[in-house]
């Protein structure tokens, strides 16, 4: 079992509130329980091995917000409900209870993040942490303080293993 819940070391801190370390199985459970989860992927997801996992997660029926130019990795995939949106816009809209979501079906209640630049997503999450009640889980390779929960800092290998475990649990 890939233990990604350790090494929550931050190199700089935003303040006293920090993401909880979490494990694939817990993430899977939270996704199950969520009414309107959203899977938000960044451009780094286009790396081959990561993309395969991202697609697999998307195929579990979670709508995808493809940020950066990551949409390229989801265009021809069947069973994938992916739409392009800029992450800074997405972060803005997610704080707005009046936003209808990517599909006009209303707000989301759980955000799962993968494939983002660490420093960038940590900033976007800083907005969500401070100005929304949204639960956010970063399943990327770096611990991000500003998520509600986050995988710890891991090697690429352990990270892929964790994602596989997550997929198995979904």
């Amino acid at each position: 079992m890939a233990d990604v819940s350790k090494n929550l070391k931050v190199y700089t801190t935003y303040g006293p509130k920090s993401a909880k370390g979490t494990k694939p199985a817990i993430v899977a459970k939270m996704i199950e329980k969520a009414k309107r989860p959203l899977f938000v992927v960044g451009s780094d997801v286009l790396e081959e091995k990561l993309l395969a996992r991202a697609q697999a997660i998307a195929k579990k029926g979670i709508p995808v917000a493809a940020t950066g130019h990551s949409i390229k990795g989801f265009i021809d995939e069947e069973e994938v409900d992916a739409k392009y949106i800029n992450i800074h816009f997405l972060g803005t809209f997610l704080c707005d209870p009046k936003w209808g979501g990517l599909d006009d079906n209303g707000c989301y209640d759980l955000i799962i993040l993968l494939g983002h630049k660490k420093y960038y997503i940590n900033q976007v999450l800083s907005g969500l942490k401070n100005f929304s009640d949204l639960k956010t889980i970063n399943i990327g390779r770096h611990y991000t303080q500003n998520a509600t929960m986050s995988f710890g800092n891991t090697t690429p290998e352990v990270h892929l293993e964790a994602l596989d475990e997550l997929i198995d649990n979904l």
Partner: protein
Amino acid sequence: MSELKTGTFSVSDLENVQINIGSIVGAIEKTAAEEGEVGPTIKPNISGLRDWDYKLLDRYNAVYTPMCDQCCYCTFGTCDLTGNKEGACGINMEGHNAREFMLRVITGASAHSGHGRHLLHHLIDKYGADYPLKVGQTNIIAPNVQMVTGKKPETLGDLEDALGYVEEQLVQLLACVHMGQEGEAIDFESKAMHGGMLDHVGMEVSDIAQISCLEMPKADEEPPLSEIGMGTIDSEKPVLLVIGHNVAGVTDIIDYMEDNDLTENMELCGLCCTALDMTRYRTEGGDVPKAKVVGTLAKELKMIRSGVPDVIVVDEQCVRADVLREARELMMPVITTNDKIMYGLPDRSEDDVEDIIDDLKSGREDGALILDFEKLGEVAPRLTQEMSKIRKEKGVVSLPTEEEFNELTSRCVHCLACELECPTNLPISDAMTAAEEGDLRAFELLHDKCVGCGRCEQACPKDIPVLNVIEKASQKVIRNEKGKVRVGRGQISDPEIREEGVNLVMGTTPGIIAMVGCSNYPDGTKDLYRIADEMLRRNYIVLMSGCSAMDLGMYQNDDGETLYEKYPAKFQKGNLINVGSCVSNSHITAAAIKVAAIFAQRNITGNYEEIADYVLNRVGAVGVAWGAYSQKASSIGTGCNRLGIPVILGPHGSKYRRALIGKPYEEDKWKVLDARNGETMDIPAAPEFLLTTAETIDEMMPMLAKNCIRPSDNNMGRMIKLTHYIELSEKYLGVLPDDWYRFVRSETDLPLARREELLKKLEQEYGWEIDWNKKKIVSGPTSKLDVSAQPTNVERLCKEA
């Protein structure tokens, strides 16, 4: 001398009185009345343009992404504001972040106008207050100054009035940073806008002063090219390196070198905007630049660590704080020349040149503060000659040897501390592994992506000088870093605006892409080349400045050509312009102002709101600060924003803490008035932001095209813009954009080649009604096509409001 007091004097009473006219000139009110029409906001104070700001902020909401959840301004604190809590003074997270953003904006504005003040003092000293301003073929010498202060400067001395205003206002804004001032975020936002506007006035003052006095190109349509890159420096010669932004002192060095025939015997090269401005010095009329450009801030530490410079002269801004500490290690004396950076060095301004040189070459002193530029002009080049000999004799080496390199790479324990500390989280550990196995390519790639900040070294538990390792591994690449950068041309001339203005406003030139800002790119410098080349091929006008202008010149295509060599340099579609250094960014806003003034005949004097309204609704320009980094970039961008020009930042720009983002789904926000009758018009959501970030170049490409769309586009213009938007989206994202149809007002707005396909989509996917016989849209669009409509956001500008 007796004093004149307020009162009414008849001139004949003033017999035998000497009036010191020199100091009076600046004070005489050149009331804008003389200049013809006058707008309502001459020298607006903090609340002077608040109404306009509120209009912008109502549509483009401030979005905060705090860099820190705490406030540590006062000693009640530190206060934790997480979750928008209130601190001890009652400020909440929103308010504090708006304040923080404003502070960064006015810091940037102060850097520029502080630089301007220093330069102006110096140039007035040297050339006199009545020295005429000369900026090229234009009747509007200083568009930003005139628009904001209501005055037309004509001499160096006239610029003092504008700077005095800027300084007064900046102090008002800094006062607002104090505990217990503004309480609401939205008013901090308006104040930030004010700071951004002031910045462009300050920049304009700085640049037109130096353009006028220092024989820099004046709205030149084809300024010369300059060499750029570490590879262009002949390290066999004595090398004098200058770093910073204020060229004042360097001109004395250049003059001394010429007067003493040193030009061929040594290398004078520069980093950052001082370098760019050096190449502008005395190149009016096409002369060859007197110095070489090494590159941007990202090259500072790299250049020093290379060991090549023999002497370093710094002036102000974007100079690494560790220059003295780093240079000391390599026996390079450092001369500071500006009171903004003094490094604790002894002030030798009053001392004898020989004594100074002696103390420095003997190593008795690490460096010297020399505020006397004439003295500097002599000391720096002479010292360089001496140090070159001494340093070669002593065999000063900097980068590791092959052997040391191997030891260093194998010392790495792959703890990843460097990667997590690296601002860009670069894969240093993997590169170490590869290098250990003899493969240097990974490091060569890092060399371009690395911003040269050195934080990796601070983090390394094994004390590996990571940057030295990268540089050593990249020697081959560095030797080939030889490019060309076009010398900064200054303003856009009136004839150019006259010719191109109509295309811009009507949309037949698809837009202006202004690439400004610093070299803090998320994925290396080549991205700049990709953006510029893509947009230039599509006939956008691309304007460059500062660090971006330099980095763009570092890349060559397969023919060995840089884009500066490939594309002409007029203000015309498909042309590539370098306006100049950091302070030359004012010419970008100036160009937009001049379009309103010259093409549309709008009065600009003291008429900010109307001009900004014009730009927002009619001038399809987008700023890009892909390597957004310094506080100056935030003030430049914010100055653009208040004037209605949207700006896209790279992902690091999210650390400015706030964006201005519109919500396309809020339908009531996307309306304007028609100035002909005051009626409300629906408009598409473009520009859909004033400040935002993008993750990658690929993502940004379609954003650029989309956000050049303006309510005023005619159908030809809209068609062209929409074509590019769709094409770029398909090319870089692989999809037709979700919202393409929102920009369609009639079938004539549709890309010609794909009209039928898209009409079908409109019918099938969006339920629009199409008359297939005439191939016309019958119903569907939310905004109407009316080429003679006059979109405005300002009620008072409507004829019957």
